[in-house]
């Protein structure tokens, strides 16, 4: 369903002791671990604790992952288990300001976590595709994506593109992004993606 070949390759390189590949895995999936911790409403110290456990377990088990492509799911499950561990440990600590057990916010359900995995995989693929765009496209798209959205006059001044050229350049950059092999199968049907980007030129 997804284009997982890059994950599989990364996992294989990590097993061979490649620190760069490990860094890439951390870059890709730290938002997944981070967001699941937020779902459990952990504080920063607990998130660091969970992060350390998850990555250590990964470094320990990466050679024996039965299916490398299942890495995001494995990370989600492990993060969830570790989050529950620190929550259980913390709950024993009697805080006067802690609401009673039955008024605690509910744990996120399995569907919510599964959704985090899907979003994390899509986001990772989009960032990988984005990182391979020409620098000019990256500059333009990241400037347009900033929060709050910039006005075109500012973009034009900073990048030296006439205001009237921003729209077409943006479209061209998005077209390149869409054709990235990283996004095959991620944004819907792969074949029809190509078809549309061809006719759109």
């Amino acid at each position, binding site marked *: 369903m997804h284009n997982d070949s890059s994950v599989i390759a990364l996992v294989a390189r*990590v097993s061979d*002791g490649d*620190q760069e590949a*490990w*860094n890439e895995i*951390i*870059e890709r999936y*730290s*938002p997944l*671990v*981070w*967001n699941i911790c937020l779902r459990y409403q952990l504080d920063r*110290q607990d*998130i*660091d*604790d969970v*992060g*350390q*456990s998850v*990555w*250590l*377990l*990964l*470094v*320990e088990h990466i050679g024996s992952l039965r299916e490398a492509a299942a890495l995001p799911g494995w990370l989600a499950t492990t993060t969830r288990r570790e989050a529950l*561990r620190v929550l259980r*440990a*913390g709950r*024993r*600590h*009697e805080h006067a300001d802690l609401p009673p057990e039955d008024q605690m916010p509910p744990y996120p359900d399995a569907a919510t976590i599964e959704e985090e995995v899907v*979003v*994390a995989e*899509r*986001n*990772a693929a*989009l*960032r990988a595709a*984005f990182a391979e765009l020409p620098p000019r496209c990256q500059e333009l*798209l*990241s400037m*347009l*994506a900033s*929060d709050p959205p910039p006005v075109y006059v500012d973009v034009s001044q900073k990048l030296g593109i006439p205001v009237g050229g921003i729209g077409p350049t*943006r*479209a061209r950059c*998005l077209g390149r*992004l*869409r054709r990235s092999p990283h996004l095959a199968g991620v*944004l*819907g*049907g792969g*074949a*029809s*993606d190509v078809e*549309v980007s061809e006719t759109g030129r």
Partner: protein
Amino acid sequence: MPEVWDDERLFAALREALHAREAVPAEFVDAGKSVFAWHNIDAELAQLTYDSIRDADYEPSLRAEAASIRALTFTSAHLTVELEVTGDTLLGQIIPAQGGVIRVQPRDGGETTVAADEIGCFSICPIPSGPFRLYCRTGGDLDALTGWITLDP
């Protein structure tokens, strides 16, 4: 599903992807990268199983004592590490009792090493001011690595 994403949908998705990455603090990512140093090292994670601050309420008989002494226990499948703060020194013991080497690893770097004697006792002085963890290397097959420890002076 084979519906094609138009530019607006693709751009919105890209925007979300970039923001999701930016929302994660750099230190969190860097801490993850540094974990790779544990690749191919036979260490198990020892998890915090007792903290006097947290668990004192569960042991009423010890409450008075526990309030004055900070004690922590980390447990892995093969080793237990007991820690106790005494003044400006952190006293520790590896259980089952055995000699070994304890590496004190502050998160900010600057690792130091102390020895554990034949009954597993060691002392760390001064106590690191920031978060740190202990890597306990014994004669056995598996070493143990504690979670992050922060002891406020």
